[in-house]
């Protein structure tokens, strides 16, 4: 049986450096597909999709809201050919009712231990309209190594440099952060994977550079420290979201290969200043994630925030405008106040303003979004700052013997496409 698995393309933010990372959802899902099923995977962000009737079943995995319309379009074309289409992934859950209009089946929740039944149903021509496992999380020990063999790995190189692979060590979150839907997607509890299962998967990964995509590693100190201890011998270098700012945690994180962390910067307080300094003291770089357009921000606040970011010596900064994704408090609040004016999901890319900000017009917020990017990267462009980070990780890899030179045969190729400006 042949299963065509598709990760739809989306439009990248204008003017920003494009990095296509190997997707995570499809490889986690693929690990649970029955062994006798042949998987043919296409990531539309790095290769063209050919729609034909050569598969038995089509799966569409969607992570972002900006993927859903393209996902629905693909599904409509396959269904016109008579093939059945099942959807899964984060944004299938966020947009479930709408997605059902384009699907033979949707899968909601986490896949571990559930896909044998789905494929058995398909074989009996009894695919259910909904497989609903929301609120029924699987036993975390069932989460095995993701199946990264489905990826065409050469497509995830930029001028010979391999992109990081995505990896997760936990699911769920205890917090209810304003722009985040993890509470709905992964539940309100923090669910760490058993450390031995995490190490098992990490040991099998041939990429030394990783992005640990967990919402936050800072939710269980004991587990977090055990995780970092267990990771030290693996010598991986990794990027992650927040880790705790306790000295003993940061020390272990640095030993475990923390390369840089994403840190939300929401004000100009000493708390933020000290936190960035603390990461730097342990040799961990920081990429600030800065959300613009919140109700407590005026034009002056945003300009002051950008000045502050330059002052605290952030290694990188990523500016986004608030996108009120469904199932977030931001969405609920703006909905109540009737402030969302644009429901075109392609515009929910965190670069377009789809609601009325409290203290300025949508156009002014768009202008400030561009101002923030331009001002922060005026003295040193984003590519140069990234190059500095790459240099730092390379020198660490050279010193611990894990360095892999860039692929010369892919030096003039960027994500599967030939480029001319070879460095």
């Amino acid at each position, binding site marked *: 049986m042949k299963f065509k698995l598709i990760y739809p393309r989306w439009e990248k933010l204008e003017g920003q450096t494009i990095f296509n990372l190997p997707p995570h959802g499809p490889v986690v899902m693929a690990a649970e597909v029955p062994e006798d099923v042949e998987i043919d995977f296409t990531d539309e962000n790095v290769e063209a999709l050919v729609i034909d009737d050569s598969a038995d079943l089509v799966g569409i995995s969607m992570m972002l809201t900006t993927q859903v319309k393209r996902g629905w379009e693909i599904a409509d074309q396959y269904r016109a050919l008579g093939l059945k289409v099942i959807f899964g992934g984060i944004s299938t859950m966020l947009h479930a009712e709408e997605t059902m209009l384009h699907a033979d089946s949707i899968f909601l929740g986490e896949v571990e231990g559930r896909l044998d039944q789905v494929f058995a149903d398909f074989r009996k021509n009894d695919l259910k309209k909904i497989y609903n496992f*929301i*609120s029924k999380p699987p036993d975390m020990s069932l989460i095995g190594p993701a199946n990264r063999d489905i990826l065409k790995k050469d497509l995830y190189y930029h001028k010979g440099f391999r992109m990081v692979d995505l990896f997760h060590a936990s699911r769920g979150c*205890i917090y209810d952060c304003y722009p985040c839907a993890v509470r*709905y997607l992964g539940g*309100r509890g923090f669910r760490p994977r058993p450390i031995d299962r995490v190490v098992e998967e990490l040991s099998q990964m041939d990429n030394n550079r990783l992005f640990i995509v967990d919402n936050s590693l800072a939710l269980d100190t004991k587990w977090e420290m055990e995780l970092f201890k267990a990771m030290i011998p693996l010598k991986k270098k990794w990027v992650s979201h927040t880790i705790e700012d306790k000295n003993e945690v940061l020390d272990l994180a640095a030993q475990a290969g923390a390369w840089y962390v994403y840190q939300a910067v929401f004000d100009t307080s000493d708390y933020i200043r000290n936190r960035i300094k603390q990461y730097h003291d342990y040799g961990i770089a920081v990429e600030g994630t800065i959300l613009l357009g*919140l109700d407590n921000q005026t034009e002056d606040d945003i300009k002051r925030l950008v000045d502050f970011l330059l002052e605290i010596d952030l290694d990188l900064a990523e500016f986004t405008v608030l996108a009120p994704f469904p199932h977030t408090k931001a969405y609920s609040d703006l909905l*109540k*106040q009737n402030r969302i004016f644009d429901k075109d999901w392609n515009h929910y890319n965190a670069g377009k303003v789809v609601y009325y900000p409290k203290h300025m017009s949508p156009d002014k917020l768009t202008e400030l979004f561009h101002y923030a990017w331009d001002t922060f990267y005026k003295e040193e462009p984003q590519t140069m700052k990234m190059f500095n980070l790459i240099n730092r990780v390379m020198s660490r890899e050279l010193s611990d013997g894990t360095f892999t030179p860039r692929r010369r045969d892919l030096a003039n190729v960027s994500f599967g496409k030939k480029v001319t400006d070879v460095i």
Partner: protein
Amino acid sequence: METNPAFSKYMDQYFDYLGHWDSPSKCGLKLIKRKDGKTLAIATEIYRQNPGTPVTEVVAPLATQILKTNSEKPDNFIFIEHTPDLRSKLTFYGETFDRLEFDWNGEYFSNPVWTRLSKDEVNRMMEG
């Protein structure tokens, strides 16, 4: 939840409801019988203590369920959504009250419209 026969004037409770995709959910619920005979329902979002869907996202079916559980008539039913102050460093988690207006089709509420209320307005509404 069963109808509480003891409810004559005032009742505070946790209220269980089904959220999106049947996820078990919970809110705080204050019911007040006003002097004018109307029932005022205040549904409070309890954030981390709510394992499922927030009140806002299912406010119309939730209001329907509260109405039916308490054998009320739509014309005699006033519904307020409440979010408590979480004392967060962020400003988005302050206390808010919103009065809901719905369409009623004889069976259930739909098309919610929220109107922000001050605490004083809520206090006055509790009197009736």
